[in-house]
């Protein structure tokens, strides 16, 4: 029990510190103890954050949401289709295909970023939304999960009767299977959402235009400037808090999906 408390403090302390720091005026960061509140100025700090450089932070937050929601949405759909086909259809090369996709799980995504940059610059895609969006939709792990979930959640009998009724495979998928797979699709979506939300290396390589940055890259840039512009420090802290808290809340609310996904990914 005592150990668990120590560990809980370890996990929560930085977030608590972040919250306390986000409520302080810049000057108090250095002059007051970091874990105790001083002048409560959270709302002014938020105002400064959102107002800085013509509201660029809002743009970054929006970009992160666009990359993550759209990327994970499209990614989940295509992973589900592919994983479902791998689970439910028999065709030549199926196992080979699956092995190649699984091999993709082992490829370090950062190793892909540099060659992708060169390819995308040849295609004129660098410095666009697509440069970050397109690679983000591919999640081999998502296919792997979808295959496991599909074979577990969609009984073959239902597919058989749908086929007897003369329904096409795609129609069956969208009208019957998707509904059965919904909880697992949420799981896949969440995994991919977090992966894209946290992604940093790819956007850093691909983007130079600040207006396209996701929150991670934007705060990284700001953090690099705090050495010279002390005022930015408070905005980096407040920005970090703003970018972390909503995700944590969503996260905690959706915990059961994680557990089912993690269980499926590891045990089966």
């Amino acid at each position: 029990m005592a150990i668990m408390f120590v560990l809980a403090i370890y996990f929560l302390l930085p977030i608590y510190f972040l919250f306390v720091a986000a409520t302080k005026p810049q000057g108090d960061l250095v002059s007051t103890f970091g874990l105790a509140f001083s002048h409560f100025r959270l709302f002014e700090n938020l105002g400064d954050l959102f107002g800085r450089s013509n509201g660029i932070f809002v743009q970054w937050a929006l970009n992160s949401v666009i990359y993550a929601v759209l990327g994970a949405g499209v990614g989940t759909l295509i992973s589900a289709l592919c994983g479902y086909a791998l689970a439910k259809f028999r065709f030549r090369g199926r196992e080979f295909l699956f092995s190649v996709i699984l091999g993709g799980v082992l490829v370090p995504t950062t190793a892909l970023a540099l060659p992708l940059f060169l390819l995308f610059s040849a295609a004129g895609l660098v410095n666009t939304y697509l440069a970050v969006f397109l690679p983000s939709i591919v999640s081999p792990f998502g296919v792997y999960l979808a295959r496991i979930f599909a074979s577990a959640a969609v009984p073959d009998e239902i597919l058989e009767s749908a086929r007897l009724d003369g329904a096409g495979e795609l129609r069956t998928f969208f009208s019957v299977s998707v509904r059965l797979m919904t909880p697992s699709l949420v799981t896949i979506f969440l995994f991919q959402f977090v992966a894209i939300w946290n992604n940093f290396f790819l956007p850093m390589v691909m983007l130079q235009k600040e207006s396209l940055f996701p929150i991670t890259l934007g705060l990284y840039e700001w953090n690099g400037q705090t050495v010279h512009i002390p005022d930015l420090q408070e905005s980096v802290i407040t920005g970090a808090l703003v970018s972390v808290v909503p995700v944590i809340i969503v996260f905690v609310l959706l915990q059961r999906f994680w557990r089912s996904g993690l269980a499926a990914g590891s045990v089966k």
Partner: protein
Amino acid sequence: MTDLAVTAAGGRRRRGVGRPRAVTILAFVLPFILPFVLFYLVPVAYAVWQSFLVVRRTGGEYGTLYTTFGGFTQYAQALQNSEFWGSIGRIALFGIVQVPVMLFLALAMALLLDAPMLKLKSFFRIAAFMPYAVPGVIAAIMWAFLYSPQLSPVVELFKGIGLQPDFLGPGAVLWSAANVSTWLWTGYNMLIMFSALQAIPPDLYEAARLDGASDWAIAWRIKVPIIAPSIVLTTVFSIIGTLQLYAEPAVLRQISSNISSTFTPNMLAYAVASGNNYQQAAAISVLLAVITFVLSVGFMRLTSRRVGL
């Protein structure tokens, strides 16, 4: 992982598994396969191809650049580069210490959470899992504040007991980065193991308990072996993650001159690419991917015999 998956979904040939027309199958798999090929396989192939090229130049000082086949030149150069080995050595040291520490913590927590007597379970579970919601860059920024000599309450607390820790000093900074990774990923790994533990039918323990086995004995003799596949999986993911390390040291580099531009293999590759030497960067990336692959597959093979994966 391949083995693992085949037993999961393949193998069985059930009656309801259809054999639709090729067009239908393509309609299902192509939406994924196409981008997978374009944004996974093609870049890999491109990187491999690039890594076999060398730059040539026509017309002296500022002549026109072109590339030509150079065999293993780039690989030879990478392997002779002391910065490359330095970064590999650093990451190896990092991984050998950080991965076991993190996984041990995760396992211990998972077992404690699975034990009947612990209270406040969901609080602990959520507390540990929370950091997973924090992007690596932001986690590093947060910890950077906790490390910084001017701002950190932790440094201040240490000063209170007469210590003067320098988290960003030449000897410490690697472990400061390791701490960020541990903080980020322990909860995630814990949850994987915990989910596996929850899937064990309780009656398995009954017999042992009747034989008078203690909770510890049950944990180590029964639970741990059963969830071994999860532990293997988390280890593999941790190996992959460690070899890719970039964001956390890059953030700490912003406040510490003790992290060089070539601190990790990935930072080296990026620095080399920034110097316009894309072919060399490609070779480093390929080497890194090969090392990742060999280590993770090797680890799985090694353990699969033992744990019967």
